[in-house]
């Protein structure tokens, strides 16, 4: 079966776009082929800085012929209908149509349309221009006098089709004056001449001879192996860096790995700074000395040419640039250490954190207050936590972090250590940003925890207050990550930390008096809460006025203001808590927990202690895994179903407790007694946070519930008995409410 080879040859494609472009090309072309009935055996895409290519293997030579019967108008239909039918089917005259008899409809015409399949080459020539014109580059451009767009100017196209035993056919199509052919070029500098290619194998072999490794994965493997070998030969270890490798393999067609060095005096700079300098600016790898565990004064660069001098000039050039860069880095590092962190803080007052959330200085002030509030709850010294929070962002104003934002926090630690600040303060500088991602470490030192939580909670509440919540895939301020960070810090450290009060006090700070005075309406996004607020205020006012004698309205107004404050931050906290619940569900689901159980627990009033929520969920899951649990759940559902039906019928809600004197049957009395005991036990155990024991207590209901349903008819003919039994069923419901909302449990 024949194969397709396609190559789009252009000026240098940005490295970061290459892998995605290769995938897109494969998908677009193969989808278009399949859509047109052309199945294939395999497809592989290739990408280098200058070419995007695709080989599709095992295509048929042509599409299958197709037949279609199309029903037309009845015999004797008006001429216009007949003409329309002929036009739409392509028949020359109505005699070419068959006449079919139908018992109900009589005689009507049927056209038999036969479409011969097109040659695959023709199909490809048809689909390619469109695929190229609408290719999904993240950014594309025009050039010269043309109007087409490509990532950079497109120069030539190879498109061949054929089996390995024949000369492949060139599929011709044209796009903005570029006619596809079978000619490509080799390496820009090492083999710039044009040459013809036939099929994939030929293309690969000729490119290799022309100093182009077309396969991206192979280039990566070559770079990685050569870099490791070169390191090893010098007694060093390569500091592997997948992101850098991805990028570098997109910058070369012919990777040549070389080693350079820099002066040892630069090793005074922290390793992370050296690495960031060399990586970001020069796209070179750094090396570790296995004897010291620290970086060595060497680096590995990946050149795109095998130079005539063996790479001496290239290494010398790169060394010179790296020397200059490291001189800058050293200068920054030395300069930064001359100014104490505390001396930088004043500048934060003039730096905007967010247009609607004011200056960075004010934000730091809030974090300090919040960290001090959290400190005693997490076993940290409040004064130390406050100091750590005050300095945690100070490194943002240093030269090194200005140059390498990814080193924020870490540099703070270095500078704090340099100043001999308490080790907790230094650690918090780095750790308060953590955890950054799902695999990042969670801080465990109490001071770091206090600052990390304060920072994240202030961020969340702040963006909530100005109504910049995440929507769909958009989360520009990484609020989901912040919430997950809070969750992980609490759970991993087994912290008992009710969130609501913290959210409220963060909100109070953000929506503080001063803001109200200066921007009563717009600046805080208060308008987004306005509708709800106005409602609340009016309600509050009415309530108050009803109780307040005439002539004292001013007190009422003051009261209304208090209500506004409380409501605004209270609403916000409630809304944020449900966001936390969602994040927690995602988090627990990823760890295998049932999201319905999380829902069941969160459905209870006032669940803002994440650790307790999780413990309840775990206990509940364990309980539901037992025979007792399953049976009780079944009994519960039976009770609730009956209740629901009867309540609907009667239009009333039955609320326990049942009246003792109306309990007639033994099983009834038994159940009522059991509920009484179990309710008490459950609430005692829950109070002491013994959730497993609470479940154990709950399981004592199983027997009585089963016995009740076996022996007692709920819908007794006597109305008082029936009502009393329904109340008893409600008691089952309320007994379980001490643990979770069983209605939310699925399965």
């Amino acid at each position, binding site marked *: 079966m024949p194969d397709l080879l396609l190559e789009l040859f252009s*000026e*240098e494609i*940005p*490295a*970061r776009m290459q892998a995605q472009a290769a995938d897109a090309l494969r998908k677009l072309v193969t989808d278009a082929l399949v859509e047109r009935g052309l199945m294939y055996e395999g497809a592989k895409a290739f990408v280098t*800085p200058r070419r995007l290519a695709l080989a599709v293997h095992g295509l048929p030579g042509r599409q299958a012929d197709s037949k279609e019967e199309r029903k037309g108008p009845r015999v004797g239909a008006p001429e216009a209908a007949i003409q329309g039918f002929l036009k739409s089917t392509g028949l020359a005259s109505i005699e070419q149509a068959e006449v079919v008899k139908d018992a109900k409809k009589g005689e009507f015409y049927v056209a038999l349309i036969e479409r011969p399949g097109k040659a695959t080459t023709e199909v490809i020539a048809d689909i390619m221009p469109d695929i190229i014109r609408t290719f999904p580059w993240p*950014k*594309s*451009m*025009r*050039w*010269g*006098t043309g*109007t087409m767009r490509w*990532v*950079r*100017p497109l*120069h030539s196209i190879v498109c061949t089709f054929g089996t390995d035993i024949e000369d492949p056919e060139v599929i011709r199509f044209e796009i903005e004056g570029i006619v596809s052919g079978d000619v490509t070029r080799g390496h820009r*500098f*090492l083999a710039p001449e044009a040459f013809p290619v036939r099929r994939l194998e030929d293309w690969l072999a000729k490119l290799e001879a022309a100093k182009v490794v077309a396969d991206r994965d192979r280039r990566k493997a070559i770079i990685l192996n050569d870099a490791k070998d070169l390191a090893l030969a010098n007694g060093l270890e390569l500091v592997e860096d997948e992101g850098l490798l991805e990028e570098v393999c997109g*910058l070369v067609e012919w990777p040549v790995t070389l080693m350079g060095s820099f002066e040892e005096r630069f090793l005074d700079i922290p390793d992370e700074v050296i690495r960031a300098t060399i990586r970001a600016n*020069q*796209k*070179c790898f750094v090396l570790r000395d296995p004897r010291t565990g620290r970086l060595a004064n060497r680096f590995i*660069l990946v*050149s*795109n*040419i095998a*130079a*005539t*001098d063996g790479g001496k*000039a*290239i290494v*010398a*050039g*790169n060394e*010179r*640039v*790296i*020397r*200059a860069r490291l*001189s800058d880095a050293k200068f920054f590092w030395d300069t930064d250490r001359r100014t104490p962190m505390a001396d930088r803080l004043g500048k934060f007052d*003039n*730096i*905007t954190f967010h*247009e609607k959330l004011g200056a960075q200085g004010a934000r730091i002030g809030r974090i300090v207050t919040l960290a001090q509030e959290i400190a005693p709850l997490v076993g940290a010294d409040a004064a130390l936590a406050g100091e750590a929070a005050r300095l945690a962002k100070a490194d943002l104003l240093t030269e090194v972090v200005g140059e390498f934002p990814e080193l924020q926090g870490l540099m703070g630690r270095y500078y704090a250590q340099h100043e001999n600040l308490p080790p907790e303060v230094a650690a918090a500088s780095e750790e308060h940003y953590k955890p950054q991602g799902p695999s990042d470490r969670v801080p465990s030192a109490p001071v770091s925890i206090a600052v990390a939580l304060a920072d994240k909670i202030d961020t969340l509440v702040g963006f909530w207050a100005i109504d910049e919540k995440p929507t769909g895939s958009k989360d520009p301020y990484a609020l989901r990550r912040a919430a997950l960070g809070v969750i992980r810090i609490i759970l991993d450290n087994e912290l008992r930390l009710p969130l609501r009060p913290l959210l409220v006090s963060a909100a109070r700070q953000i929506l503080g008096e001063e803001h109200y005075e200066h921007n009563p309406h717009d600046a805080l996004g208060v308008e987004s809460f306005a509708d709800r607020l106005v409602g609340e205020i009016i309600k509050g006012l009415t309530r108050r006025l009803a109780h307040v004698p005439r002539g004292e309205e001013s007190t009422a107004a003051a009261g209304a203001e208090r209500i506004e404050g409380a409501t605004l931050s209270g609403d916000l906290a409630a809304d944020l808590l449900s966001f936390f619940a969602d994040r927690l569900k995602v988090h627990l689901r990823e760890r295998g927990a049932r999201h319905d159980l999380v829902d069941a627990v969160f459905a209870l009033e006032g669940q803002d202690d994440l650790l307790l929520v999780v413990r309840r969920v775990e206990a509940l899951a364990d309980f539901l895994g037992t025979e007792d649990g399953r049976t009780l759940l079944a009994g519960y559902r039976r009770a609730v179903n009956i209740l629901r039906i009867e309540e609907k019928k009667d239009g009333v809600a039955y609320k326990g407790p049942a009246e003792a004197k109306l309990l007639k049957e033994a099983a009834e009395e038994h159940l009522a007694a059991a509920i009484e005991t179990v309710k008490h036990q459950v609430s005692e155990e829950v109070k002491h946070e013994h959730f497993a024991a609470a479940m154990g207590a709950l399981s004592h209901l199983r027997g009585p519930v089963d016995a009740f349903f076996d022996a007692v008819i709920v819908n007794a003919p006597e109305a008082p008995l029936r009502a009393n039994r329904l109340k008893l069923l409600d008691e089952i419901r309320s007994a379980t409410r001490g643990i979770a909302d069983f209605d939310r449990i699925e399965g």
Partner: protein
Amino acid sequence: MIDPALLPHMRPDRSFQGLLLTLQTFWANQGCVVLQPYDMEVGAGTFHPATTLRALGPKHWKAAYAQPSRRPKDGRYGENPNRLQHYYQFQVILKPSPANLQDLYLQSLDAIGIDTKLHDVRFVEDDWESPTLGAWGLGWECWCDGMEVSQFTYFQQVAGFECAPVAGELTYGLERLAMYVQGVENVYDLNFNGREGAEKVTYGDVFLQAEKEYSRHNFEHADTDMLLEQFRMAEAACAKYLAAGEDGERHLMAQPAYDQCIKASHVFNLLDARGVISVTERQSYILRVRELAKACGAAWLKTEAGGGAAA
């Protein structure tokens, strides 16, 4: 390869001015008009009307020129070996961008002595955007052995208008390139005139004192009251000239108006260096300059050279 016929002091790898002249000659041979620097303070060669304005409209255009570029904030009192508040860009603009623009660029490197069989020349993604000019384009920074030596851009939009045809722009950082080909680590050590011994003039001889003086000026003494006033005046004058130049379908004074836009932009850079512009204000100043640039671009498109006025 460097032209062997060149006298030693004219060689691009021995003389700063030799480098400049070699590039001028190279691009003159490609049919460019070789212009002189624009006689106003600008932040980059792109501001020269020969690029900003000529990039707009349908008319073809090829030009090359050196442009002193002022970056008040980059002043380092002459103490940094790489950073200057005044330096030279060599600018080439070809409209429409020819299909062989990359090859031409590489030939120009060859002419100043960068052998691409010996040196690793790379085109690394770098999209260019000038918020003040309302302009953007796609292209690369060109690396030679890991050092950025040029910017290469296909203009997509200037002054908020689509460029059609598209102009290709090359910007060579002359000092960097000279440091590279002369093998010098400190910009002030560059040989400026290509002579040796008592006759040798270095870049430091020419510019070190200026760097010190202007750093003091830019960071400490530039008269901010005056500058704030100048900004306001340039902005007003630009609008005034644009209004005065309106002539129905045509515009008769686009270039004098654009001069005021350039002026405002430089004054803003000075104010920025003096640290008197807050973060929020900064954005609004940039927007104000962009509005001027857009209005001037619109006016230019109604001039003869802008292709808007039928003869």
